[in-house]
């Protein structure tokens, strides 16, 4: 009898164990591999919170953003001892975080209070009839005049702002001055892409090295060039215009440079790979095109080039060209957040305040949205970036200030499909395999995007 009871209990335990496993309260435990951090107690004696801390959760896919928000929580708790917060952060790989966010938003439970959403995935969450993020108008509008509006507008739907960027993501070109010097080329003489191509010929002749590498598995570099030429993947209303002449012209220009050897395809497929870091660090190419935030890739992975890299605005197609800005990551507050007002005020202080904007530079090394800090002492203070690139880094961002334009990156929910197709097919077919002409390849991609539901 006793044996039977034990057997029954064991069986019952086994039956219930998988079910029990699912029912732990959401947010209570961190997923395996995630970094959970509490920032409620920071700030020393003065910062000791006196009230009961309100828990807030934050999900991101960038480890450095975690550091930034933990620092922001410390600052908040020091400034608001009567209203402290306890910030739990979790970091996931990009696809995992977005699919986890989708599932929690679908199920109506378990979503974080504050979340980082990749700009290329933002429109996946923003479709008619559903509001999964909280409008941030009341924290953005009072400070709007200090902000670069094109970047704010990326996350604007029906007059409401649903996300707040970390940085402008100003398109930037980085020149290896040692290689340019050997060919007698000065960065300031390169104004147009045509000048750039000509300079490339001199560099190739003098050093045997290419002027630039073109990515075949990452869209951003060609996207910058296409937007500067008046192209984009979608128009402001979300209609697909990827097969435009402007886009084809850019691909043709890239092909021309590849043909005469002034450019090569990027080792490793794109400039965010170990293969490329090694290649660039060993002086493999004279320049690279990316956004301002790429500064930290140099300081972290290409220390050999310290003092040998000049930061400049990208060449233009013709005078009066604008520079596309598309940020990179929008921070949003989900509708599941129970303390939306507090979360908003915290987010405002972390990102929209002058101090917060300064931290975006000092902690993250990004170009903050608040342009009124670009020319202050904060950006001139000595840090690893000024040591590497010199003190006038922000002059470049300032020189482009009036030429920034919003890209239509969040205009269509099909953007993630388009970027996947460009990353995996278009660039490779046109630039590497050369199996299709730019216009034919773009037409095929446009057709495929059309078929995507």
């Amino acid at each position: 009898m006793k044996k039977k009871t034990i057997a029954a209990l064991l069986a019952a335990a086994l039956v219930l164990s998988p079910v029990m496993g699912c029912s732990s309260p959401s947010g209570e435990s961190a997923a395996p591999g995630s970094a959970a951090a509490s920032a409620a107690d920071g700030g020393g004696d003065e910062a000791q919170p006196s009230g009961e801390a309100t828990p807030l959760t934050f999900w991101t896919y960038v480890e450095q953003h975690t550091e930034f928000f933990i620092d922001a929580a410390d600052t908040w708790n020091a400034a608001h001892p009567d209203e402290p917060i306890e910030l739990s952060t979790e970091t996931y790989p990009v696809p995992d975080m977005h699919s986890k966010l989708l599932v929690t938003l679908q199920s109506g439970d378990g979503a974080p209070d504050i979340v980082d959403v990749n700009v290329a995935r933002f429109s996946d969450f923003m479709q008619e009839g559903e509001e999964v993020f909280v409008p941030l108008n009341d924290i953005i509008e009072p400070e709007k005049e200090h902000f670069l509006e094109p970047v704010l507008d990326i996350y604007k739907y029906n007059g409401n702002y649903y996300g707040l960027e970390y940085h402008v993501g100003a398109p930037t070109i980085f020149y290896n001055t040692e290689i340019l010097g050997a060919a007698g080329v000065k960065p300031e003489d390169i104004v147009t892409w045509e000048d750039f191509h000509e300079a490339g010929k001199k560099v190739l002749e003098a050093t045997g090295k290419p002027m630039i590498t073109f990515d075949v598995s990452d869209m951003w570099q060609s996207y910058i060039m296409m937007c500067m030429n008046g192209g984009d993947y979608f128009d402001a209303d979300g209609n697909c215009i990827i097969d435009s002449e402007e886009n084809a012209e850019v691909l043709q220009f890239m092909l021309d440079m590849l043909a005469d050897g002034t450019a090569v395809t990027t080792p490793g497929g794109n400039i965010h790979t170990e293969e490329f870091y090694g290649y660039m660090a060993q002086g493999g190419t004279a320049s690279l095109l990316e956004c301002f935030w790429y500064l930290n890739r140099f300081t972290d992975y290409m220390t050999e080039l310290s003092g040998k890299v000049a930061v400049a605005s990208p060449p233009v197609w013709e005078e009066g060209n604008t520079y596309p800005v598309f940020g990179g990551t929008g921070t949003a507050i989900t509708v599941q957040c129970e303390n939306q007002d507090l979360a908003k005020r915290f987010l405002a202080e972390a990102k929209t305040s002058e101090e917060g904007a300064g931290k975006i530079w000092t902690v993250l090394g990004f170009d903050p949205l608040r342009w009124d800090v670009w020319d202050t002492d904060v950006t001139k203070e000595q840090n690893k970036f000024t040591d590497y690139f010199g003190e006038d880094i922000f002059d470049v961002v300032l020189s482009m200030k009036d030429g920034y334009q919003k890209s239509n990156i969040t205009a269509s929910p099909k953007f993630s499909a388009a970027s996947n197709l460009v990353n995996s097919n278009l660039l490779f077919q046109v630039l590497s395999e050369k199996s299709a002409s730019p216009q034919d390849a773009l037409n095929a991609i446009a057709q495929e995007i059309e078929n995507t539901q």
Partner: protein
Amino acid sequence: MKKKKLFTQKTVPYLFCAPFLLSFFIFLLYPMLNMICTSVFNLQGVSTYVFVGADHYRRLLTDPHIVSAVLNSIGFTVGIVVVNVVFAMLLAILLNNRLTPLRNVFRSALYIPALTSIVVAGIFFRLFFAGNADTPLNLLAGLFGQSAREWLYDTKLTGILALVFTSTWRWLGMNLLYFLSGLQTISPELYDAAYVDGANAWQKFRYVTLPGLRPILVFVITILTYGGLRMFGESYVLWRNSNTPGDIGLTIVLYIYRTAFGQFDMGYASAMSVVLFAFLMVLNAVFIKVFGIGKGGTGR
């Protein structure tokens, strides 16, 4: 009385099976039925599903990436089955021979890669196949007068070869172990009898070893085939995330993953999964028929 009724000889087996059955229904059967259901809907936004009927299945017929994914998966599967069966069997025979020196060392050494994580192995091989002139493979190619090339971004064939190489490196030791265990079940008397009958080495292999290894061969071919067709990790790591340029390393499961989690196109991804499932079931039936699995007496 009630207690007695609960624990009868008839009910207790069900009670013991309940954990498995519940897990099966909740974690396998329900998601599968849900997948079939989702395949006729289209996800718009976060939670709005719109009925689209057979649209996703029709799209499958015109999607150019499906062709690449299927060809890559089949190419990879054929590659690993051939390489892993032939090499593993030959190595097993070699390492089963008492005359082979250091055979225990080799057995362990060949098994060690199976213990490494695919992420670690993938990163190593990504750099191994990289286009930089100073990578091991390009240095090796240089010795034969070949210029440096981007092996992972060259052609579909080099892509599949890279996948087969990486996968074989990891799993050869495991398959070797299966064959070794199979070889050790063959009675030495059979070899003695063959020797007495005047059989040469090839005849011994053909008429004693090979029939003796038949159950293991069937097992290895089966697991390699299914492993190959649902391969994901190697491709995901070698080409970083899910973007394999020109579909060079795109496999069926990677494409499903990219569609579902890269684009939130859950309906289409489900439709692909349903078709893959149906195909694997048909393949299953073929395997059962051809190899006579489950009939019993499949012995030598």
